[in-house]
């Protein structure tokens, strides 16, 4: 067998192996080299898989049998267009965050635990890629726990002691979520007798209205919603993002919740198909109202935060509302908006959190550990750190959805989907919630550009390039994907049409 046929397995195995290797090597820079190499290899493999999917006819699937055991008995890795899209996002984000993390954690984490940081990041990456690529329901749970457990450790590495409490809280809520998911999978297994997602989808039609299947759907919805921080289940997120090390916040914000959205799409559209989700239970209405609540409540809370990191953490909860709103429409345009926003929000929010990491380095006193980015420390920042401030503004524009940025594309499709349903008030709600985003981004603009810097701090002191370059790559990407949408939008439309129109 040639190497290109083994890419699906290598996609997960390389980051997974890099983690114990990093622990064995113990030296910070050696661990860094190993995990970074694995992340870049994973990124290259993800692109390779993308090209392989591209070469297939429309809606083609690469099926990889682990250990050559044929599905549905053996574990199958299935890569279609959506899988490959998410794989590129996750591994690309890891490939960018890792070079950044070396300079960032030097100031935030004690030297002797650096190798553990890299090991955990490698493990988290392996878990997230595994969730995405696998076609086996129980495998989803196992990889979910691999990524979650390493994420708890990464958050607990934050310098503030509140990071520990935040991590503990995330552990409790995350484990409840994962257990709900495994209960849901258990019911589905009991009813269908299979764990292979594609096989499950084929068998579920005959028993779709039986009570265990409906219970499974409810358990899966609640469990996955906890993981993706849907509005009333988001309480773990703000503190976890605020007190985690900057690189960790950026990586998790861009990938962990997005992969959970992917799992939700998989179960809703691929396994259950349309009949169950959208007719037997009032799930679309529930999703719609919770999403609207997220858009308004979370964005509103964000406006009044004193800590910039916390502000954008609440903004994340609001932005996830847009993604779930798109799902609730159950239409090609709605699903397209969700998938595009999953990508666009991921890169914009990662850019912002990476830049905040650069910002705290800039406002720290020489030799001291970086302080919390509270607004009283940001006055006149644009004069001291012009590149960092400008980057946050551009990425913030993408969060608002200004034309010319990536965020506009996803909101445009969301508005199209709402119009298609004839719900004009929803268009108003989407636009109104964007105004809330304007308000919280403006708070940063006002502090950084219109307030005078405190005396003695006028000197220009930009963050090191090792922090700025990865962040600016993402900032430019969020402008690029607003202008050239063939890659993101093209594939999202293809995926959405495949999932909505050609249901099993």
């Amino acid at each position, binding site marked *: 067998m040639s190497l290109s046929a083994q890419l699906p397995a290598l996609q997960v195995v390389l980051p997974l192996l890099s983690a114990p290797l990093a622990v064995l090597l113990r030296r910070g820079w050696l661990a860094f080299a190993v995990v970074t190499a694995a992340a870049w290899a994973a990124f290259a493999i993800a692109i390779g898989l993308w090209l392989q999917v591209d070469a297939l006819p429309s809606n083609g699937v690469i099926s990889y049998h682990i250990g050559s055991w044929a599905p549905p008995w053996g574990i199958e890795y299935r890569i279609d267009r959506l899988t490959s899209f998410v794989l590129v996002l996750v591994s690309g984000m890891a490939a960018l965050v890792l070079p950044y993390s070396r300079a960032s954690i030097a100031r935030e984490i004690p030297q002797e635990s650096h190798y553990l940081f890299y090991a955990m990041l490698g493990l988290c990456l392996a878990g997230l890629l595994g969730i995405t690529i696998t076609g086996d329901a129980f495998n989803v749970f196992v990889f979910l726990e691999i990524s979650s457990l390493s994420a708890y450790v990464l958050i607990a590495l934050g310098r503030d*002691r509140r990071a520990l409490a935040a991590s503990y809280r995330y552990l409790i809520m995350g484990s*409840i979520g994962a257990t709900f998911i495994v209960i849901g999978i258990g019911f589905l297994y009991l009813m269908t007798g299979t*764990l292979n997602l594609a096989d499950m989808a084929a068998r579920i039609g005959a028993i779709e209205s039986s009570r265990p299947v409906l219970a499974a759907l409810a358990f899966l919805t609640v469990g996955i919603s906890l993981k993706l921080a849907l509005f009333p289940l988001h309480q773990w997120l703000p503190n976890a993002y605020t007190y985690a090390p900057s690189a960790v916040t950026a990586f998790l914000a861009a990938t962990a919740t997005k992969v959970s959205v992917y799992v939700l799409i998989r179960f809703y559209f691929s396994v259950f198909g349309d009949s169950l989700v959208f007719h037997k239970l009032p799930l679309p209405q529930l999703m719609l109202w919770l999403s609207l609540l997220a858009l308004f409540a979370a964005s509103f809370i964000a406006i009044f935060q004193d800590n910039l990191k916390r502000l954008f953490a609440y903004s994340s909860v609001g932005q996830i509302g847009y993604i779930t709103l798109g799902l609730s429409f159950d239409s090609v345009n709605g699903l397209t908006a969700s998938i595009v926003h999953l990508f666009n929000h991921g890169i914009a929010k990662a850019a912002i959190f990476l830049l905040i990491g650069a910002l705290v380095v800039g406002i720290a006193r020489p030799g001291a550990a970086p302080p919390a980015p509270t607004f*009283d420390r940001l006055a006149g920042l644009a004069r001291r750190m012009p590149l960092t401030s400008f980057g946050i503004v551009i990425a913030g524009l993408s969060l608002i959805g200004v034309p010319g940025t990536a965020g506009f594309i996803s909101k445009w499709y969301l508005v199209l989907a709402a119009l298609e349903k004839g719900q004009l008030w929803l268009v108003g709600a989407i636009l109104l919630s964007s105004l809330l985003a304007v308000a919280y981004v403006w708070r940063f603009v006002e502090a950084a550009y219109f307030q005078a810097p405190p005396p003695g701090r006028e000197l220009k002191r930009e963050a090191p390039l090792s922090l700025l370059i990865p962040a600016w790559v993402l900032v430019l990407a969020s402008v690029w994907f607003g202008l050239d949408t063939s890659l993101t939008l093209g594939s999202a439309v293809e995926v959405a049409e495949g999932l909505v129109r050609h249901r099993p």
Partner: protein
Amino acid sequence: MIEHFSYIVTVFLMVAGLYVVIARGNLIKKLVGLSIFQTSVYLLYIAPGKLIGGTAPILAPQYGIYSNPLPHVLILTAIVVGIATLALGLALAVRIREVYGTIEEDEILALDHQVEAAQEPRGEQREEKGA
């Protein structure tokens, strides 16, 4: 009623565990509840896979009925995951005890609020000194 015995036990453990996680403020007791909750899921998988009188799946003429081995294998993995979660949770509780001096959730929250309240005036003072 009696044929649903295993389900009744499962649901009781599930709800009891979840209740302990939500209702208790002590970090260790929360973890105990979480463990009970996770254990109930093991039962949910294992019990339906077992046939009374069934053996392990041995292909031999004298064994006719055998239990489904797959749930056992799945739950073996789930047990490992559960232990890892519990270990990490306990490690976090130890670290929290070291830095906060307590493992009661309300006391931890109160300490955090104290710190936040103390930080704000200090920030203003620093500005004044600078001026």
